[in-house]
């Protein structure tokens, strides 16, 4: 009998503990005290912390990020910070910023992300992205999470690589452009093999972007 009581008590304790953990999880990182936050750049920076939704990783080295417009989510790199001085937002229509990342794998990166609640025609938008590059871009197009993604890899020199992308929501007019560029800070020799891995990492990151309004029936007011 006493055994059962103890077991019951144990279950209660586990359940209560579970509840507490849930509560912790639901506290926004911006409201947590600094010592409880993960010791990574993204959380150390006050401005960046505001966008992060939880201290629980979405996958290794990434945390959940919600844009200032609330329009899209993505995985945010632990070594990244959002540039506060260059950050710009116009109501729910436009948001633009630069992210600086210490990738922790011998690469230093920047990502430029521009969101528009109404994006233009695909061909015009791709032309406008291309005109910011001295080289020809070959866009490859595919679908992911109700988004049409047009992505082009580029290589500036032996050490600098990256990708340009246009993401268009399939059922609303929303869209965003991203320019992700990474500089290998090791020797040219080391960089050779690392570059391929970095390109894969970039592509995987692009695929983590999801619009909050997932289809037309969602949040139509």
């Amino acid at each position: 009998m006493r055994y059962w009581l103890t077991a019951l008590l144990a279950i209660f304790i586990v359940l209560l503990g579970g509840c507490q953990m849930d509560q912790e999880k639901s506290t926004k990182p911006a409201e947590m005290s600094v010592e409880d936050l993960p010791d990574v750049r993204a959380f150390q920076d006050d401005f960046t912390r505001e966008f992060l939704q939880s201290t629980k990783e979405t996958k290794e080295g990434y945390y959940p990020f919600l844009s200032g417009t609330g329009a899209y989510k993505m995985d945010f790199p632990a070594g990244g910070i959002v540039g506060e001085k260059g950050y710009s937002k116009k109501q729910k229509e436009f948001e633009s910023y630069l992210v600086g990342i210490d990738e922790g794998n011998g690469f230093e990166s920047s990502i430029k992300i521009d969101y528009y609640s109404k994006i233009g025609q695909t061909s015009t938008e791709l032309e406008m992205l291309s005109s910011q590059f001295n080289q020809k871009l070959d866009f490859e197009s595919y679908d992911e999470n109700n988004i049409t993604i047009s992505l082009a890899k580029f290589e500036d020199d032996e050490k600098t690589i990256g990708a340009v992308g246009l993401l268009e929501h399939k059922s609303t007019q929303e869209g965003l452009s991203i320019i992700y560029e990474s500089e290998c800070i090791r020797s040219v020799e080391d960089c050779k093999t690392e570059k391929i891995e970095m390109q894969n990492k970039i592509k995987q990151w692009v695929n983590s972007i999801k619009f909050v309004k997932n289809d037309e029936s969602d949040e139509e007011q």
Partner: protein
Amino acid sequence: MSESILSTDEIRLRLINLEYKDLNKKDFEKEIKQIYLEEYGEILPANIEIIHSRDSKNSEVTSSDYNGTAVYFHSKEKDINELYIISQGTQDGADWEYNLKAMFAGKDFTQAKSANKFTEEVIKEIDNNGELTVTGLSHSLAHNNNTTAHLIYDTFDEIYSVNGAQTNYYQLFNADRDFRREIMNNFNLSRTNPDAIYNLDPKQLETFAKEYYKDKATNVHQLISKDDPLYAVSGARGFFTIGDVKYVDTNPDLPGLRNLMDEIPDEVIKDFQELAIDYTVASKKGGTNAAIQEIIGVNMDLVNEIDDIGSAVKVYFTKQGEIDAMVHGLNDKLPGVLSRIKTVTGNADVIFGRLVNAGYITEEQKNTLVTELTAIEVELDGIQETVSRLTSIRDMGDFYAQLGGDAAAIIKMKRHYNSIMESFEELNNEDLLAAMEQSAKAIVYLRCLKVCLIRRNHILVQIWFIRLTVAERKFE
């Protein structure tokens, strides 16, 4: 192709001016024909098609704040095939908000994008396989729109502008990837710091930007009045002037505002820019009180609820959280703002003294300005002192002491705030306003600095700016 159909400054200026009249297509066409006849003494030798950006098929163009009109001149016999895009300058509050973000803070570039999209759309629409020349015509903000679009997207063959808001290298850093990359490489910036550009020397950046865009600059032609307020601020960090520029001294009796502005130390301009950046960052949540709270840390909604000790206690009990937040906010933010205000009062003699010497304002008006600015500084000092005392009372951990301390502090702050508002009343004095309006438009920018800082009402900023634009449109 022979000489273009709009070959003189005069006719181009008259067309730019037409854009502000909000004419329908028929009247627009009629006016153009009339102007052509007056300028050249002959009938326009081409057909005209007019397309307004508000009629664009692309909803992202119609929903943006960009406004422009495309005028297409064509004639097969005469071999005329010319498209003119007249982008509109600053028109309303939304534009001035954009001005702050785009021109001073250098962060928004959506109107430049819209200018390019609209132009591309029109080119497709009038598709005629001929050799089309595309010319941008612009005044004020439109020069920033047209030229920024041109530098990034190669939108135009030629650009003609009058009294333009100049291009901004911070804005192009955000909007043009190749330029951004070249800056990072040239100045050895680490990609890990997204705000590194703001620490670079403005003069070096200006030289670099001019050199980087020098090829495209050859197609930009500007006409600038030395008395134009946008010219006066064009020496501020961020701005770089490109193209062949014809300067006109429209008011030879006065030395021109630019010289005066140039004497204001870069530190002051930098503070202004920081304020513009703070302001735009803060106003992202909408609402001016929120923006003011973000900048100085005073929750205006809260303070306005308080009249006496009774309401102070009521607010205290019902709005605990907000008061807590305000005390912390004030503690964090006030010292920064105060030091910026001190930069301005500390340089008051340079700024206002030069305006007196140049005959823009009288000695007496200068004294009023300096007195009131100093008074504002004293009040802000008072607020800061109250806040720091408050934080020490709060640190004692005694609830009643805290209650008493907070309530007293709120009333004190309210008193300081009222004094600040009195100073503003003083500054709003009719004579002073009139003197400033007719003589020293540059001072509007200085006033804006104060207004952005403390004034509750964002609209005031806009009114000032709008007054400024109205004063500008004198080239009829």
